[in-house]
């Protein structure tokens, strides 16, 4: 701790911080560019000049950069100082000498940090009379637009992209006043986190191309607190819309999860909401086999008929839909007829994951916490592809070694360049065993590529090495044993070791192994942490809710026990092999699908009800750490589209068991009453009736200007904002907006003088980069199973003889919703089978040639590629929209 004085006010502050961070935390308006709460200080832009006085006697003081100034005890600083202000104004004047002043046509306009800082410093008179230098721009692919003339050379982009995200294809090129930030040639950014450049860039050099395609002013959007639906991590987002079109996804700060950054799937994957081919009307398949729209009252009669004549109804829910949607379906069909929508292997792995969380509920890492772990063991997950945001956190974790060196040399942690320079290429140890090469291998110590059962064995062996009462596995070879010992020793000696596993290989043994290793480790180190990733946004929620797996639901149809399937936001073809799904659909009399996308299942359904997507509904998702989080409707869709749970309630009514709930609050109360294991979800966000000073919380910023003009082409009279019956938010700019708003209701970040998302959020944080005021949103649902230490799990692994399929996930393609977004579709890789060189020889197929393979009864044809990382007799198969859907694991193959 230190006591410092800023503009005459005394503050007790953290002496390990720099003055800029502290001044911002204390609410001062001090302009800056090159500093960023996650990228820290480098002192390049010289914008944050303040006056520093050596001691009380010092009257002259000197100009220093706040971001490079430690908060040493007794420090005396003036922001409100004439010379410092002169310096700050001049820095802007320099920066603006070459800036094109094209604000009216700039996509950044309105949330531009450069605009804000220009205003803040008071630079209004242009004295520079020279010509401006110009640059040519690059085509950076479908995500990001490039307009280099706007560049003020703050170096934030490269510091984020290269130093933080470890991307290597964006650099500062050129020198003196001709620096250029780009790639060596046109092309999409290679890094999976490139989209954050849009927010990291303080002006309009890197902007969101998907927004640019249907641009509107930033302040003319209706936003809502969102939860990303594209993986299990539950990153917080702020989707923005206008006139019923989803315009963009912006980061929404959550101190413990995503904080300032999203992955590109999350940021650019929402385009499916705007697709033309979405079902927007109730559809019924006619006698010719064509889906036809039906009016609502007609549909009402049709559905009454369906349920009146149904001989057994089974419901298939979805791990990508909300608890509310799933529960409403469960109510419709009855708990015993409800399936979670997960394939058997996925359900079993998810249950193992849930068990692991319950065993170590007090030791679960948050995403943010991962960054502070100094030794990591990853079992099975190709994280960059299956839970991308974790990869970004791990890239920070590996830098703890740098911080360690820095601390030993008294270099403060915020001194970004010095920390990097002293750290060089030394990393904190990260071990990883996966089935094939991953995009994290560059920071992994001797990456292991193993078959799934061998990954589990490795995990069990590490557990045994940590604690010899943990079950051992069969004799390992010498090298593997040496590695196991090295991993165990490293984890043991770490300050904060972390174990990561997940469900992507569909193998519960891998998670059980992680569970055992964690069990062994936690006895040694209180600080040890566990992190489990799941397949989808609500996989854990569904595992907690419970239900049958998809196969069991299919059996009801196949056995004739039921003839009607109701599917909620799920595509059966993603859950089981095509032939089986085809047969089930053929056999069922009715296949009723409630969905927002035109999936293959919709294409085969007898009845379709247009459900709202995440943008058109409220709901609760449980992320991979067991945190229940609420997302809110961004805009109201045109009737008759409505929430999945409302459709399910309507169906329940026609089926003769009208639910007792009306709105979200009722529904949630009912869920909690019926499912005590989900108690707490009601706390994930305030109830519909919650008000602050009698006010709701706005979805649109105060500056929203378009209310009367918005529908002028239809009617110039001002529409009344719709009243939100399900949440305490308003569909307008009216309401309470400010620091004491519950953070879960914060739809966008804005503060007077601070219009950019990343800077404005500072005013809502306890301190820059810290938790949100009032606490980071969400409620932890997973509780520890009793007080006693759980027993170790038996070290059982399931091996596949001969050739084994190993799934290859891809961030752009494996997740089906985002794959329907045009920008993501453009980045989807071509499908290919991969084997190692020996394998190709055995198969007698030359790379590039098409290989025909029968997997689980289905024939697939893809070109063959050689991947030397693959273990013997494994074949890597692309899974998801860009490859094979409905793959059941584990699966062996017999290539001819």
């Amino acid at each position, binding site marked *: 701790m230190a006591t410092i004085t800023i503009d005459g006010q005394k503050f007790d502050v953290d002496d390990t911080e720099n003055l800029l961070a502290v001044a911002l935390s204390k609410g001062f308006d001090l302009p800056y560019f090159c500093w960023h709460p996650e990228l820290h200080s480098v002192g390049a832009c010289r914008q944050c000049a303040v006056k520093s006085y050596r001691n009380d006697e010092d009257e002259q003081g000197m100009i220093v950069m706040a971001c490079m100034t430690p908060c040493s005890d007794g420090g005396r600083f003036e922001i409100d100082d004439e010379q410092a202000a002169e310096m700050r104004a001049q820095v802007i004047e320099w920066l603006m000498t070459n800036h094109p002043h094209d604000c009216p046509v700039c996509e950044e306009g309105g949330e531009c940090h450069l605009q804000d800082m220009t205003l803040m410093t008071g630079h209004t008179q242009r004295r520079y009379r020279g010509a401006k230098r110009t640059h040519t721009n690059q085509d950076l692919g479908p995500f990001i637009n490039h307009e280099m003339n706007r560049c003020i050379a703050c170096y934030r982009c490269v510091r984020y992209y290269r130093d933080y995200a470890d991307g290597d294809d964006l650099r500062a090129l050129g020198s*003196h006043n001709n620096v250029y930030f780009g790639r060596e040639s046109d092309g999409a950014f290679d890094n999976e986190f490139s989209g954050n450049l849009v927010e990291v860039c303080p002006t309009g050099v890197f902007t969101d191309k998907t927004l640019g395609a249907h641009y509107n002013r930033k302040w003319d959007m209706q936003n809502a607190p969102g939860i990303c639906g594209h993986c299990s991590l539950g990153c917080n987002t702020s989707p923005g819309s206008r006139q019923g079109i989803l315009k963009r996804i912006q980061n929404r700060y959550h101190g413990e999860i995503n904080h300032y950054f999203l992955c590109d799937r999350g940021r650019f994957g929402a385009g499916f909401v705007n697709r033309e081919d979405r079902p927007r009307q109730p559809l019924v398949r006619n006698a010719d086999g064509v889906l036809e729209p039906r009016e609502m009252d007609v549909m009402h009669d049709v559905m009454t008929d369906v349920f009146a004549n149904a001989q057994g109804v089974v419901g298939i829910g979805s791990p990508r839909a909300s608890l509310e949607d799933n529960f409403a379906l469960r109510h419709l069909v009855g708990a015993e007829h409800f399936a979670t929508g997960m394939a058997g292997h996925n359900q079993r792995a998810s249950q193992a994951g849930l068990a692991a969380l319950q065993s170590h509920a007090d030791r679960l890492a948050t995403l943010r916490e991962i960054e502070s772990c100094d030794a990591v063991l990853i079992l099975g997950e190709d994280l960059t592809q299956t839970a991308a945001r974790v990869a970004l956190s791990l890239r920070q974790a590996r830098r703890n070694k740098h911080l360690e060196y820095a601390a030993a040399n008294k270099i403060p942690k915020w001194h970004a360049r010095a920390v990097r320079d002293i750290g060089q290429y030394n990393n904190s140890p990260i071990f990883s065993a996966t089935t094939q090469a991953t995009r994290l291998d560059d920071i992994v110590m001797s990456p292991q590529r193993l078959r799934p059962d061998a990954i589990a064995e490795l995990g069990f062996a590490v557990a045994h090495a940590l604690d010899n009462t943990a079950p051992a596995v069969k004799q390992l070879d010498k090298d593997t044993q040496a590695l196991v010992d090295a991993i165990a020793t490293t984890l043991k000696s770490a300050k904060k070791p972390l174990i990561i596993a997940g469900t992507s290989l569909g193998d519960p043994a891998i998670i059980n192994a992680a569970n055992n290793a964690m069990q062994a480790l936690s006895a040694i180190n209180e600080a040890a942490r566990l992190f489990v990733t799941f397949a989808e946004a609500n996989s854990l929620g569904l595992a907690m809710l419970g239900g049958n797996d998809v196969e069991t639901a299919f059996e009801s149809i196949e056995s004739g026990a039921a003839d009607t399937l109701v599917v909620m936001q799920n595509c059966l073809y993603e859950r089981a092999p095509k032939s089986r799904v085809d047969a089930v659909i053929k056999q069922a009399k009715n296949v009723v699908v409630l969905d927002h996308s035109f999936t293959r299942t919709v294409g085969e359904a007898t009845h379709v009800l247009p459900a709202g997507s995440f943008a058109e509904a409220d709901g609760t998702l449980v992320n991979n750490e067991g945190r229940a989080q609420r997302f809110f409707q961004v805009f109201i869709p045109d009737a008759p589209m409505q929430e999945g749970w409302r459709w399910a309630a309507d169906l329940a009514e026609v089926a003769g068991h009208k639910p007792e709930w009306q709105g979200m609050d009722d529904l949630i109360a009912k869920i909690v009453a019926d499912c005590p294991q989900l108690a707490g979800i009601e706390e994930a966000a305030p109830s519909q009736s919650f008000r602050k000073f009698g006010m709701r919380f706005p979805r649109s910023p105060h500056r929203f200007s378009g209310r009367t003009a918005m529908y002028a082409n239809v009617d110039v009279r001002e529409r009344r904002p719709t009243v939100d019956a399900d949440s305490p938010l308003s569909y307008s700019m009216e309401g309470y907006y400010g620091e004491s708003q519950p953070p879960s209701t914060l739809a966008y970040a804005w503060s007077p003088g601070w219009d950019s998302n990343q800077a404005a959020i500072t005013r809502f944080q306890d301190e820059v980069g810290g938790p949100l005021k009032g606490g980071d949103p969400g409620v932890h649902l997973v509780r520890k199973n009793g007080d006693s230490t759980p027993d170790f799990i038996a070290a059982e692994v399931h091996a596949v003889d001969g050739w084994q399929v190993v799934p290859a996930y891809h961030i752009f393609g494996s997740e089906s919703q985002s794959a329907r977004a045009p920008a993501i579709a453009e980045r989807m890789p071509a499908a290919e089978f991969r084997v190692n060189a020996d394998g190709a020889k055995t198969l007698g197929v030359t790379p590039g040639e098409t290989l025909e393979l029968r997997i689980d009864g289905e024939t697939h044809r893809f070109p063959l590629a050689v991947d030397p990382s693959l273990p013997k007799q494994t074949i890597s198969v692309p899974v998801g929209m860009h490859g094979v859907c409905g793959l059941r694991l584990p699966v062996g193959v017999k290539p001819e």
Partner: protein
Amino acid sequence: MEETKVLTQRIRPDRSPVFIDDYMAEGGYEALKTALSDFGPTEVGPLIKEAGLRGRGGAGFPTGVKWSFMPRFEERPDERPAHVYLVVNADEMEPGTFKDRMIMEGDPHQLIEGMIIAAYAIGADIAYVFIRGEYVECQRRLQRAIDEAHEKGFLGKDILGSGFNLQLYLHMSAGRYICGEESALLSALEGRRAVPRHKPPFPAASGLFGQPTTVNNVETICNVPHIVKNGAEWYKGLGLNKDGGTKLFGASGHVAKPGLAEFPLGVKLGDVLEHFGGIRHGRQLKGLLPGGGSTPFLTPEHLDTPMDYDGVGAAGSRLGTATMIVFDDQTPIVGVLKNLEHFYAQESCGWCTPCRDGLPWVEKMLIGLEEGRGQPGDIELLDLHVKLLGPGKTFCAHAPGAMGPLEAGLKYYREELAALIPDDAKTLSLTESANANPL
């Protein structure tokens, strides 16, 4: 005035190189033997400190003190980092500076011997000479000298049986003035863009590849063998005032006999000028930059200035590299300034705003003045730049260096500059200036 030849004692009139046989015949590598046999590794530094040797690269920091910042691992060998580095700064891109080139080309072993002793003194096991890319001849001669030293056992493992190891490599720069700034030089050596680093941490704590490192100028290191051989007292006695030793002086520009010479520190400016033949073509001195392009001007009133660190400092300038650039009374000051600021604007690394965007503006204003397109307020705007590109306000010393001559120019030649603004010039509004010929 007679030269005092220490560093240049072996330099041949025709500048042909002195290689190992001649070098050793003239007492070469004696100092190394003395250092390795008579001094412990920690005893050389204090000697250099005692001798009062100050850095010849421009900043004049006491060399022995700099060495004393290096962490020592004699007592805790297991904490010794992978490597400890000595880097010799042979970038020499300061305009008007050509001293290091001469001693490297003429007497390469002197530098190598100095480096071995320096490395021994700071505990380094790898040494690099960071040499500017254009100095191809230097590189050839140094490389040959290194190979010779290797053969004689002065480099490599267990040098002269002392147990001390040193690898010595040359690194040819790809050319940028900022590479001469010691921390930018380290970035360049690491194969990166030569962007300076913030200090602290100083290279002694985190230098090349994050390891303890000392950076010294060529001339600084060349002094070391002489001090080891002749002692601190002798060295101190060489200087005329407080600063010990001799210094290479150079003169270029409008002097009658441009070149290099070695004098004791403290020699009078006028005497040095006279040595180089005074102003050529019988003209008068208008001003000079005493030690390279970033040192503020001195004028005829300063001819009595003693040329040592404090003396030149008291006259409002810096000794710098002591290679002076001289201009006569028919030289328009605006051209001199424009040329200098063009250099600095061009050589800015582009990292920090004031330097990257301020210097080109300064250059443009000077061009405008020279071409008769100045406007009222330009002089004051130049003043403002001098103030806001000063030390501490920019990231490294490059921009403050650029402001040295400009500040002095605005002080000594203000009227001349102001007179360049046409009498009928008015401050143009933005729209007018857009239509007018831009700067």
